[in-house]
């Protein structure tokens, strides 16, 4: 066993052992461990197989930048793949599995892919499976043959199929100052802003505040850095104006200083307490953002740099100091900068032997030399690692190296080591600043991209700005806090830091060019040679490089690989790195759960719209259905009835005697003002200014492009007063349409529109006996044919409540719509029911309403589908020639009057079976019932009046096909059969019945 737990040290709680399972084997860790630290403490260094080549891989980092150690977590019956082991806090019973291996992690069959290396180099898929077919092993057909095997062999974890049973939640938050990152810089910024009385949110992705203070081994304010951080955290926690969010990653920076964050609320617990979500999505609107997101360490690229046992130096330091874990017994260090020396000293102090410090630089700083002395080893300056040996690391090969020319010389010699820690310099974590806008700026001394000039309200602090020392973190943090508050004088004392005076600038060395596979992107198995191949083949822009090689893609988004990849491309092109540029960072900064994005905000804030008669329907055992936000009765089923039997009975009752239907959901808009009539002439295709007071008219609206938009009746209640009705679905859109024209196009018109949908309750009373029902209950007005002709309006009372009655018909029967104030809705409805009792009045739902309208050939949203014109629907008679209207200019363009357009017809099932909405109509069907579509069914029902299954359809040519036969083709529902195309006016085409 090489990796192991140190005898002391770390911030873990050795009194709290925790048992967990990895690949079926049970291990013990301590409270405070991540899965990665606990596995290392148990000597587990092989944790995964690589993406393409199935090479054995170990733990490479200690944080969210982890490219290798991705595992699948099994929790609550759900498997969640691709979670970095470095970000999983262990809990009792944690069960995790390694990925992309078969049959086992130790022995993986697909590791033979390594032998076929050239086959999987960059561009392999494009070259092999796309483009011209030359020979048998090329082209799309070959891809279809290979896909299954390749998908199985190359990849990350496997997602589960189970439904996720846990809860997710969304929160909105507002603050004056949002501090991202709670390292020394973030803590100082938050303290400064909080003391100035600002509302502060401090977000930290780790469970513990302090960031680098938890592993730097330095002293701040005369205390150990961890203790200083603890005190600061306690101070901030005590303040009312500070909200601290731990385990919270700010992952998106959007316009208007709106930031997105994910809080992992219960991932670290064996089970979520009742009512507590797993993840909480935060949408934070911040006055100013302090970005104190730190820096991410880069690896060096050299052959064998992916072997288990190779790890970033900063990560190793973190394991030693924060978790009391040694990643190896005999550790070699390979670096181009001073920071790795601190790691060497930390590892030595924790109990490991440092066997070599290999530094590409010829000269190093006195501080680094002092740390090397602490580590008990003289550094090998001017040297480089050229290879590694062992399934798990046993040896590193070392050679003389000239950092100025990149040349190796002399013979390689082995150094025995079970762990190699590597540092290639540090890259500020500028992701959020890049998302906020602006191009990152290359800094030649730090060999890193620095954040752009802010074009939103943010201030940078600490290592994020390229200021890598703790003293700078504290001072820039305080300054950032001050700047965020807009105050001049600081209220916070700057603590002293005791730390070695390291040289922050690395040597400009990214790659050691020696024989063997040297990985740039460990997660996607992209090698330095792949980058050069991309260059040779012309994919030289960073965006092309990324897409051709997949460098920087996948779950880690190239956090460790972006800069080395760019450096290698820059070298190949003979350009400086700043000329090659970098890709723009996009949200999310690190992976987030889809559950948190789909969390409960929408249905929580969506109202249920209930009509005033809702309770009556429910009491009457109506089966309710949702129509948009509305709940409407679908059928009033009798015991034992099917849906079809129920609506057929209801519809037949309407045609035989009388029925009643709740139409309160129709959109209703009061249109008032001296110019109201003229406005309606613009809005509707037909004329409304000639409509007498006390009459209603059916109207059709088009869009500007001449496509049908909505229909409904509009009632003239006074010279300057109309009540417009719209379809239920389009009520909001029509209102917006009217408001747009009044605000923007014709602001001079004196018209006011008000939505009154909720103010009126409506009941349609339809059937040959409808008038008799009204006569039995309406007072204050006559309702005979003379007083209340077709499309006439009267005012009266029912059971003491004022009502407005319009005689109009959707069902084709003698019918009335009775409107009253919403508060009287149920009262009036019940009075109508009582008056109708002698006639057997039957309440009917949406299904019967639909059947009645299909029998009459009336159109609804299924036919006014945003593609059909008035002529397609045979509503030409509504298009006024006397005046222009919205849509009149463009409605008769060539394409909109073409003979081949889909136009409205009726279809009758010839095999006595139902027709399905959405089914295609084909002229000729082949043996499988398939053919070229000439249109589709828009609505269908069983017609009690015709005693047949019928439907409306939009069919090429429309009327010209009346009397012909065609086929229904519905492979999705496996429904095929012959239909007859007829007029859409199935029933009472002359309209005799509505005149009673």
């Amino acid at each position: 066993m090489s990796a192991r737990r140190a005898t002391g040290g770390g911030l873990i709680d050795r009194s709290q052992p925790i048992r967990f399972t990895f690949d079926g084997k049970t291990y013990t860790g301590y409270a405070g461990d991540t899965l990665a630290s606990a596995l290392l403490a148990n000597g587990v260094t092989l944790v995964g197989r690589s993406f393409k080549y199935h090479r054995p891989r170990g733990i490479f980092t200690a944080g969210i930048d982890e490219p290798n150690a991705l595992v699948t977590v099994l929790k609550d019956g759900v498997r969640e793949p691709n979670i970095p082991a470095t970000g999983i806090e262990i809990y009792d019973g944690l069960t995790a599995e390694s990925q992309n291996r078969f049959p086992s992690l130790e022995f993986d069959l697909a590791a033979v892919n390594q032998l076929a290396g050239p086959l999987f180099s960059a561009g392999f898929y494009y070259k092999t499976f796309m483009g011209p077919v030359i020979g048998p092993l090329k082209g799309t057909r070959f891809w279809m043959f290979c896909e299954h095997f390749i998908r199985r062999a190359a990849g990350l974890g496997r997602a589960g199929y189970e439904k996720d049973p846990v809860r997710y939640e969304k929160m909105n938050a507002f603050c004056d100052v949002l501090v991202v990152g709670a390292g020394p810089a973030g803590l100082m910024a938050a303290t400064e802003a909080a003391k100035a009385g600002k509302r502060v949110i401090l977000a930290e992705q780790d469970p513990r505040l302090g960031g680098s203070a938890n592993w730097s081994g330095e002293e701040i304010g005369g205390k150990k850095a961890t203790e200083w951080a603890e005190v600061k955290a306690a101070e901030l926690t005590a303040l009312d104006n500070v909200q601290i969010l731990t385990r919270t990653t700010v992952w998106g920076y959007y316009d208007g200083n709106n930031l997105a964050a994910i809080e992992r609320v219960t991932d670290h617990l064996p089970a979520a307490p009742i009512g507590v979500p797993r993840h909480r999505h935060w949408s934070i609107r911040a006055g100013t953002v302090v970005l104190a997101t730190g820096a991410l360490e880069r690896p060096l690229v050299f052959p064998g740099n992916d072997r288990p046992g190779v790890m970033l130096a900063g990560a190793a330091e973190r394991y030693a100091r924060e978790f009391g874990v040694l990643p190896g017994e005999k550790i070699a260090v390979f670096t181009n900068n001073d920071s790795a020396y601190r790691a060497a000293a930390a590892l030595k102090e924790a109990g490991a032997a440092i066997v070599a410090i290999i530094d590409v630089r010829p000269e190093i700083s006195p501080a680094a030399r002092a740390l090397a002395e602490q580590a008990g080893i003289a550094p090998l300056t001017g040297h480089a690692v050229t290879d590694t040996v062992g399934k798990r690391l046993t040896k590193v090969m070392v050679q003389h190296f000239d950092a100025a020319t990149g040349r190796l010389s002399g013979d390689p010699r082995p150094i025995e080591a079970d762990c190699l820690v590597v540092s290639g310099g540090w890259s500020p974590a500028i992701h959020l600043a890049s998302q906020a806008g602006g191009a990152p700026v290359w800094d030649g001394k730090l060999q890193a991209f620095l954040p752009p000039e802010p074009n939103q309200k943010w201030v940078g602090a600490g290592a994020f700005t390229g200021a890598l020392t703790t003293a700078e973190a504290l001072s820039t943090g305080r300054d950032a806090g001050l700047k965020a508050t807009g105050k001049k004088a600081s209220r916070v004392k700057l603590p002293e830091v005791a730390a070695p005076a390291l040289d922050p600038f690395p040597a400009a060395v990214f790659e050691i060019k020696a024989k063997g596979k040297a990985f740039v992107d460990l997660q996607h198995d992209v090698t330095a040679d792949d980058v050069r191949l991309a260059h040779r083949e012309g994919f030289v822009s960073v965006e092309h490089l990324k897409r051709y090689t997949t460098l920087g893609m996948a779950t880690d988004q190239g956090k460790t690989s972006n800069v080395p990849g760019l450096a290698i491309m820059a070298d190949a092109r003979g350009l400086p790195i700043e000329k090659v540029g970098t890709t723009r960072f996009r949200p999310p900064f690190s992976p987030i759960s889809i559950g948190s994005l789909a969390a409960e905000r929408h249905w929580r804030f969506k109202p249920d719209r209930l009509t005033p008669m809702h309770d009556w329907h429910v009491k009457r055992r109506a089966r309710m259905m949702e129509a948009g936000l509305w709940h409407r009765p679908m059928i009033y089923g009798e015991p034992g009835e099917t849906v079809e039997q129920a609506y057929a009975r209801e519809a037949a009752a309407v045609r035989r005697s009388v029925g009643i239907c709740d139409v309160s959901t129709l959109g209703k808009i009061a249109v008032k003002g001296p110019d109201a009539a003229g406005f309606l002439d613009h809005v509707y295709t037909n004329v409304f200014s000639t409509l007498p007071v006390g009459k209603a008219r059916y109207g059709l609206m088009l869009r500007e492009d001449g496509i049908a938009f909505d229909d409904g009746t509009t009632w003239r209640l006074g010279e300057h007063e109309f009540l417009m009705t719209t379809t239920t679905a389009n009520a909001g859109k029509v209102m917006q349409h009217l408001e747009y024209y009044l605000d923007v196009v014709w602001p001079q018109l004196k018209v006011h529109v008000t939505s009154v949908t909720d103010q009126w309750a409506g009941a349609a009373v339809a059937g040959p006996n409808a008038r008799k029902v009204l006569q039995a209950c309406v007072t204050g007005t006559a309702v005979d044919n003379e007083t209340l002709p077709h499309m006439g309006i009267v005012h009266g009372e029912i059971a003491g409540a004022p009502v407005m009655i319009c005689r109009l018909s959707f069902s084709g029967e003698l019918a009335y719509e009775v409107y009253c104030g919403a508060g009287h809705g149920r009262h009036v409805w019940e009075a109508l029911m009582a008056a109708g009792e002698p006639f057997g009045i039957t309440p009917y739902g949406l299904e019967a309403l639909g059947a009645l309208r299909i029998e009459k050939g009336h159109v609804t949203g299924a036919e006014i589908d945003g593609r059909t014109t008035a002529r397609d629907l045979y509503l030409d008679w509504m298009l006024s020639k006397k005046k222009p209207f919205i849509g009149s200019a463009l409605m008769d363009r060539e394409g909109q009057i073409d003979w081949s357009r889909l136009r409205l017809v009726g279809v009758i099932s010839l095999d006595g079976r139902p027709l399905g909405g959405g089914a295609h109509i084909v002229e000729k069907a082949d043996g499988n019932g398939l053919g070229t579509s000439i249109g589709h069914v828009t609505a269908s029902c069983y017609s009690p009046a015709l005693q047949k299954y019928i439907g409306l359809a939009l069919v090429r040519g429309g009327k010209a096909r009346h009397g012909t036969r065609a086929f229904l083709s519905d492979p999705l529902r496996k429904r095929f059969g012959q239909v007859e195309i007829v007029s859409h006016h199935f029933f009472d085409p002359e309209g005799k019945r509505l005149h009673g």
Partner: protein
Amino acid sequence: MLIPCPHCGPRDLAEFSYQGDATRVRPDPASTDMKAWYDYVYNRPNPSGPHREYWQHSGGCRAHLVVVRDTLSHEIISVAFAHAGLNTAEGRQ
């Protein structure tokens, strides 16, 4: 994105509906100039930088606003009511 509604104050984008390009001009209703109609209904420049557009505060006062927005930065440069009468002191009462 925050849009400062002259009635309601700064409000989140989610409260607004985009109502299209505010640089287009609707031809006279009786016009038969097809090019003018195509320009009004279909043809849109896609400028990089300041752009005049209509936004309705549909989740608030429902007024249509003329918003000048920078399409690069989403900065809101100016906001006024689309209904000119509302921009006068008299109109606001």
